[in-house]
């Protein structure tokens, strides 16, 4: 498996560290979020067999955090962009 880093190009898997499901957004208002919202954010996962959006850290390379869309059945990567904080707290 190779991950196309936007800075470094196609690099082997062993240069990267997995950062988990990127579709989960931290509750926007942590002080007021309900316990159910926290359980959902911390524990519950869609775990799809198919396209999965996930974080990867190019820890053995440029050290950028990436957001990668990968098919969990074939490891085919359809999108890899830099993970950047967006206004409002979400990550794109």
């Amino acid at each position: 498996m190779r991950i196309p880093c936007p800075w470094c190009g196609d690099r082997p898997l062993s240069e990267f560290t997995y950062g988990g499901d990127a579709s989960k957004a931290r509750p926007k208002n942590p002080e007021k979020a309900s316990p159910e919202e926290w359980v959902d954010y911390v524990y519950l996962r869609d775990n799809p067999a198919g396209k999965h959006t996930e974080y990867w850290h190019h820890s053995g390379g440029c050290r950028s955090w990436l957001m990668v869309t990968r098919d969990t059945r074939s490891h085919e990567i359809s999108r890899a962009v830099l993970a950047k904080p967006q206004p409002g707290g979400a990550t794109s």
Partner: protein
Amino acid sequence: MRYSLGSIIRNAATGHKHWPKQWREPEPKKAYDIVLVGGGGHGLATAYYLARNHGLTNIAVLEKGYLGNGNIGRNTTIVRSNYLCPENSQFYEHSLKLWEGLSRDLNYNVMLSQRGALVVFHTPAQRDAAIRRGNALRLNGVDAVLLDTAGVKKLAPAIDCSPTARFPVLGGMLQPRGGSVRHDAVAWGFARGADAHGVDIIQNCEVTGFRIEKDRVRGVETSRGSIAAKKVGIVVAGRSSLVGQMAGLRLPIESHVLQCFVTEAIKPVLDTVVSFGAAHFSIVQSDKGGLVFNGDLDGYNSYAQRGNMAVVENVAASAVSFMPCMSRLRLLRHWGGINDMTMDGSPIITKTPVKGLFFNGGWCYGGFKATPASGWTYAHLIANGEPHPLASSYLLERFETGLVINESGTGPLPGTH
């Protein structure tokens, strides 16, 4: 038929042409009291114990492939109960006790070999942790023996115990009652036992949906038609999230791949189960002579039943560092199994918000050794509607109440357990 020395002699004399089939191949009926989704080790064990312990026999086990094609036939066959957390320790100890009587109970040789399970340590800190674990085990009534370097060398001479090893061995914690089991025989034995009680085992029957009316389960849709059921139990290992989703369940589970390896067969070199302390690596020699071993998870969500080369290299490095005599062995087989990794690394055996629907899964990579106890406690839950005392900590609610059972002490990162 009952297997015995007499039956072997009789069938040997007649050229082994008259052995009856071990289980029937029934057509699915229109309705059952209980439908179990998944005919893996845990599903078959559940069906067997529902019949044996609770007298319930109007049961169908629906398997989308054939018996033994999933994780029950894709593991490293190791059984042990050396868990630190009391909930796990007691559960897995019950499982080990069931393993000890299983061949006789099933009238089927599952080839339990209690050759001992040894976890080696390499640093004083690891030794302290091992001693703490050993003491915890003994307080829970589980056997544990501390070995020094000489003890490890005597037990498993193939391990590099020299002071110049990359990770010098300081000693190990041995569970003498640990060992290995013939994994396929477990599936076949439970299937035969359940079938003999009248359970219908239906292969090549994939569940495609659940019939749920007013928060109560009424049955399942399958590739071979609708089947009505009063109670439905999900027990599908790596596919837990996907099957759960069909019933509207959202689960604290990620699917990850774990790779296993088998070398060519060699003469006996290792007569115990050993785990490396410097990396995730466990190894056992099979009865056929092959060395069977596994490494760490690949570490990212995967439904591909194969892994990546980076982990292969890592596992090979661990193997050669731990047992240098393996360096010239060739691999015969190599495969990946999909593990449903929970957020705390412990399993889930639970009721669900849907009445009559039960869920068993999230076995991480501890599922094989848990097979009998998983079936035993899940059968209790399905039959009585209340959790078995040994599995009362394994409910789904623990992720809401905060009573998670986290052996490794890592956070909600399934790939790290």
